[in-house]
């Protein structure tokens, strides 16, 4: 399995496949289905300082080859995540990437400081791009200076490397990535969901109680690939790619675009066994294409080796 090993700041991964934040809870449900030790890492659900109930239901709607969600960052709050979820997860030999969210800078800083000290948290993922929260939030993900300042402050308090999760809902993704690089981030994760909406044929009203939601799934994959392709050529930070991955072939497409690891979100709902399945198929696919190590695939769409 050497051929799937890969390192990123803070993360020595036995393989590059990890469930994306919000699509795997804190792992409990999936642990009933398969051994979580198979995973490269786990991106846990967004954690906020205080518990949050999230948005009213319906919170999900289907779209062509995609889905909308407006969960609204429901989570049990920092204390419970630390004391119950992360403690429970410590039985597994899998690095945890803690997704940190908030409405104010102080919230992010407080959560980052504490959660980064949990022994099994190997990296943070700053969620500055959640489209489903009304207050604050959005500015962090769309204004380069704001993103940079937040990154800097979180870096100061974090005990582990900090990845920042980019929103695709911006005019210039490279500008955002550069600002975050300047802010001292250790890596990028991209992309979060596109903002979308569906209306009910009969009532004419939004299907989601929150009106808009985040679009994920295969529908957004070409947008993710294009953004990673562009960002990876302009910043030197390692990228964990995501957005519509459903197969080992999709994983390679993210690698070719410039990712160093790949997260899987929505596909966990379609097939709860998707992560271990893809890990297995990835090896076979690499073999059939003549790759000896997954790192050979990084940036193949633009680098000279390709």
């Amino acid at each position, binding site marked *: 399995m050497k051929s799937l090993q890969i390192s990123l700041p803070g993360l020595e991964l036995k393989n590059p496949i990890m469930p994306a934040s919000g699509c795997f809870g804190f792992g409990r449900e999936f642990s009933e289905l398969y051994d979580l030790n198979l995973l490269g890492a786990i991106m846990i659900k967004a954690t906020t300082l205080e518990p949050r109930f999230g948005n009213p239901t319906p919170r999900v709607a289907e779209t062509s080859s995609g889905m909308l969600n407006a*969960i609204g960052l429901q989570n049990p709050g920092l204390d419970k995540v630390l004391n119950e979820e992360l403690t429970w997860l410590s039985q597994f030999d899998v690095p945890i990437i803690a997704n940190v969210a908030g409405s104010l800078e102080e919230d992010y800083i407080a959560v980052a400081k504490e959660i980064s000290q949990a022994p099994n948290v190997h990296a943070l993922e700053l969620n500055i791009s959640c489209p489903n929260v009304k207050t604050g939030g959005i500015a962090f993900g769309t204004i380069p200076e704001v993103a940079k300042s937040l990154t800097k402050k979180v870096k100061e308090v974090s005990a582990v490397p900090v990845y920042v999760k980019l929103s695709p809902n911006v005019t210039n993704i490279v500008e955002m990535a550069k600002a975050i690089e300047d802010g001292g981030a250790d890596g990028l994760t991209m992309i979060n969901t596109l903002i979308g909406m569906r209306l009910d044929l009969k009532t004419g009203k939004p299907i989601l109680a929150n009106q808009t939601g985040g679009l994920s799934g*295969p529908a957004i994959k070409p947008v993710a690939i294009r953004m990673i392709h562009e960002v990876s050529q302009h910043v030197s930070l390692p990228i964990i790619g995501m957005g519509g991955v459903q197969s080992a072939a999709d994983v390679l497409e993210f690698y070719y675009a410039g990712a160093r690891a790949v997260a899987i979100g929505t596909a966990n709902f379609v097939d709860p066994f998707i992560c271990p399945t893809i890990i297995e198929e990835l090896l076979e696919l690499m073999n059939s294409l003549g790759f000896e190590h997954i790192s050979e695939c990084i940036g193949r769409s633009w680098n000279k080796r390709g």
Partner: protein
Amino acid sequence: MKKKELCQIVSQEKIADQIFELTLKGELACEMNEPGQFVHLKVSDQLDPLLRRPISIAAIDQQRKEFTMIYRADGKGTNILSKKTTDEIIDVLGPLGNGFPLAEANLGDTALLVGGGIGVPPLYELSKQLVKRGVKVIHVLGFQSSNVVFYHEKFSELGETYIATVDGSYGKKGFVTNVIEDEKLDFDILFSCGPTPMLRALEQAYPHKKVYLSLEERMGCGIGACFACVCHTGDDPTGYSYKKVCSDGPVFKAGEVVL
């Protein structure tokens, strides 16, 4: 235990307007121990429609390793499902959730089973199992109109059965609650599945009885991981406490969650 299995269609039949009865074969059937659980079906191998569809288990035959569902071909996914024929394969995840608590009904008790529309199906397996345990069952089933009524006879074989239709084109005219009142039906325990207004009416009508309600909510994962299907709990000063319909439910004790 939850499993994902490629199950083969034993039969699929249209049993009323847009209503289909689908029987699948799979090892999964042996894991189905509680009436009221559901399965999560992938209706297409392609990426559109993407998500699984939650459908209740309406009957279980563990000896033959078969289970039956009854569903309405309504939107995109269920329409695709309805076109599948014998021997085709469907990707099933299940059994999911917690069903009706059989043990709450004692030998000799009378159980009132109240179903509305496509909430009726899970009550069928429930009724069969209650009868087997020596519980007396009464069924009150509500439908829109005669063309979508199904399983009248099957329920009748198990116990007293009343049908209500909104337009009066079959059985009594009106809602299930009207029937219960008019017929002065008495019971020790009530089980129900159907539209939320109906569940709410039942909850309010019998605050001092044992009442169990099966809920519906739009789902993502179906296994408790995505928080799509949460509802507030009944007694919750903080506002943060919740239950997930998919993994804590779909069956809840009346009052446990906010309808």
